[in-house]
């Protein structure tokens, strides 16, 4: 594919060590608000390897989007504070990096796709111009070369009649097409890590399928590390290699996708899987976990899931379970993980 080779000319400033692209290590993020301190991320660690798809699964308030924003360095600080932790990209800590240097990683090294493509694109500029801007700023290309590259990228993300539509404005595109333009912008500088934050939540199912297929294809082609942030267990099952489940700012389970769906290792994951209605089942009895995630300003002691957990024992209310290896390649933060897996 010519586009890919053309856009990789500058190469990367950083090289991964042992295939590990990104390493998040014991990360904490707090929000200092008028009403108190909310701990949005509470000691999260994971790594992302080249060519791997890692899904971060969680419900609203679990901290999945904040994790993405912390990695991208686009959290509003204040109110956000990162009191502790490291985010290493190819061994370099992004959090201690000078802002100027860090800014240069956004785009060529790590880039991101957002849920709402309409509000992420500038309404007053043509889309081609917006994509071309990436090349002009980061690659120093002249206007016509940059525009030519933009057309190729738009073709790559399968926008029909790209050459004619390069001068069109965001509102002239449908939701799915806008998301493709967002993807084009995100991969323009050939990043090593692509973070997709609920990329298809706002889209219709038929379009969702197209976009996920495109993302998979691009990842394969460019060997990107993909972090897919979502609440949709269906999308995860289709795309991810590994899954990290977040609950109230913590990782509660990490596993290969097949293992996790076959036998979840945390009661929360198990509950989630049991509570979704499935297209391929009839006569299903629906059941729910019940309850809500805790208020992040007042996380209960012990396991944060204990008030909703129907298996909870005394120890769950006092001891915070560490994320530990419960089976080869499987981590769970539950005192009774082995029982849950066997259940």
């Amino acid at each position, binding site marked *: 594919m010519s586009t890919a080779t053309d856009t990789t000319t500058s190469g990367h400033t950083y090289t991964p060590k042992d295939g590990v692209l990104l390493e998040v290590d014991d990360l*904490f993020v707090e929000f200092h608000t008028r009403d108190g*301190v909310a*701990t949005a991320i509470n000691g999260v660690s994971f790594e992302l390897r080249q060519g791997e798809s890692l899904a971060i699964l969680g*419900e*609203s308030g679990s901290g999945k989007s904040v994790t993405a924003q912390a990695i991208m360095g686009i959290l509003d600080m204040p109110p956000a504070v990162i*009191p502790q932790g490291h985010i290493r990209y190819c061994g370099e800590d992004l959090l201690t990096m000078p802002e100027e240097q860090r800014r240069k990683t956004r785009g060529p090294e790590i880039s991101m796709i957002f849920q709402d493509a309409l509000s992420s694109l500038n309404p007053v500029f043509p889309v081609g111009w917006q994509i071309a801007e990436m090349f002009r700023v980061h690659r120093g290309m002249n206007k016509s070369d940059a525009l030519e590259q933009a057309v190729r990228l738009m073709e790559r993300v399968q926008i029909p009649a790209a050459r004619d539509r390069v001068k069109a404005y965001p509102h002239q595109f*449908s*939701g799915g097409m806008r998301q493709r333009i967002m993807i084009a912008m995100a991969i323009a500088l050939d990043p090593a890590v692509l973070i997709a934050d609920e990329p298809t939540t706002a889209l*219709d*199912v*038929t379009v*969702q*399928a*197209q976009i*996920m297929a495109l993302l998979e294809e691009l990842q394969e082609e460019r060997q990107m590390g993909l972090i897919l942030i979502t*609440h*949709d267990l*269906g*999308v995860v*099952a*289709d795309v991810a290699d590994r899954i990290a489940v977040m609950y109230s700012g913590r990782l509660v389970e990490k596993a290969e996708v*097949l293992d996790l*769906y076959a036998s979840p290792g945390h*009661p929360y994951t198990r*509950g*989630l*899987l*049991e*509570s*979704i*209605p*499935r*297209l*391929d*089942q*009839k*006569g*299903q*009895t629906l*059941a*729910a*976990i*019940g*309850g*809500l995630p*805790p*208020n992040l300003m007042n*996380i209960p*002691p*012990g396991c944060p899931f204990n008030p909703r957990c*129907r*298996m*909870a*024992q*005394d120890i769950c*209310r*006092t*001891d*915070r379970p560490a994320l530990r290896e419960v089976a080869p390649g499987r981590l769970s933060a539950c005192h009774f993980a082995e029982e849950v897996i066997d*259940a």
Partner: protein
Amino acid sequence: MPEVVLSANNLVKHYPIKKGVLRRTVGHVKAVDGVSFDLHKGETLGIVGESGCGKSTLGRLLMRLEEPTAGTVQFEGQDWSGASARETRRLRRNIQIVFQDPYTSLNPRMTVGDIIGEPLEIHPDVVPKGGRRQRVQELLDLVGLNPEHINRYPHQFSGGQRQRIGIARGIALNPKVLICDEPVSALDVSVQAQVVNLMEKLQDELGLAYVFIAHDLSVVRHISDRVGVMYLGRMAELGEEDEVYSRPTHPYTQALLSAVPVPDPTLRGKREQIVLVGDVPSPANPPSGCRFHTRCWKAQDVCSQEEPQLEMRQDGAGGHLSACHFAEPRLVVETVDVSDLVPDERFVSSSTDDLDDVGSGLGHDDSLAPDDRSTVERSSVSDPQAPADTSRVVQDTDDQQR
């Protein structure tokens, strides 16, 4: 078959597009363009479709929040459009609506008691004045909320609880039909199931008929007896839940079903996916003939010339309504019958009561906690200085506040 409570006859809603200083009408958005169906007593009719297919407009037409451009809505055989003001009020008691967004569907300046009590005030003959507060508390209890929370304001509740309040308002007048416009789409997965179960319970207890409008095909399959699939303002296919999901005959339904991700990684790459080309055309300028022909892999010349009627067509095991010239069944989703399976009560509960308070620290949680659990909890609360506990707690909070 039970009697028909609500029927839509060739409903049409066109919105004029106005341009220029003189606001001249230059065209029409054909949001709903000839939709007919019957809703039977106590059944759930699911309406699915993608954004822009007109399903929400259809809901508003049924509710008469909008006047149809053409066609009629009949309640128990009585034409709603010709009804007098007095009759309209009576009809409104029988058809109610539940909205999608639990954050904009409740007036933030009113207490829950006032919100649920409003229908009783507007229709004072349903419950005498003295009994209204009690009726509101009954309703709160019915939807699984704590009746003592009658004086709270909406912002003191979670999304799932607010949706329950919206449902309580909807059923306050004992309607026969409840129109549910995406009632669970705004809720988190773990809360959705509770609300769906609640709606099923209310249906059984009150004999309600639902028109359940949603874009989530899985939820619709779960709750519906019959399902209608809409595309660009028209009904593409309409039939029993099993007919539409197991033996879809319209290509659009087939594509739609094949695109829904199934939470089972073992099926990855094994499910056949029908990828549609292009986007949904604009409803202001729908294609001629069959509206789906521009994206259909089966399209022939006849499809662009002649509009296929929604009529009985063979689906391999009988027939159901489909609007395709070349309707033929195709197995898209391998369906497993799991009627015998019961959810593992160690992880989830199929109760319909509100469990939102659990863990969030909002209020009561004694409703469903297993007995042993609440006693354990009580003991740990009554003895906060237990030494073993304390050290742990200190450690934990220390960690959090670093």
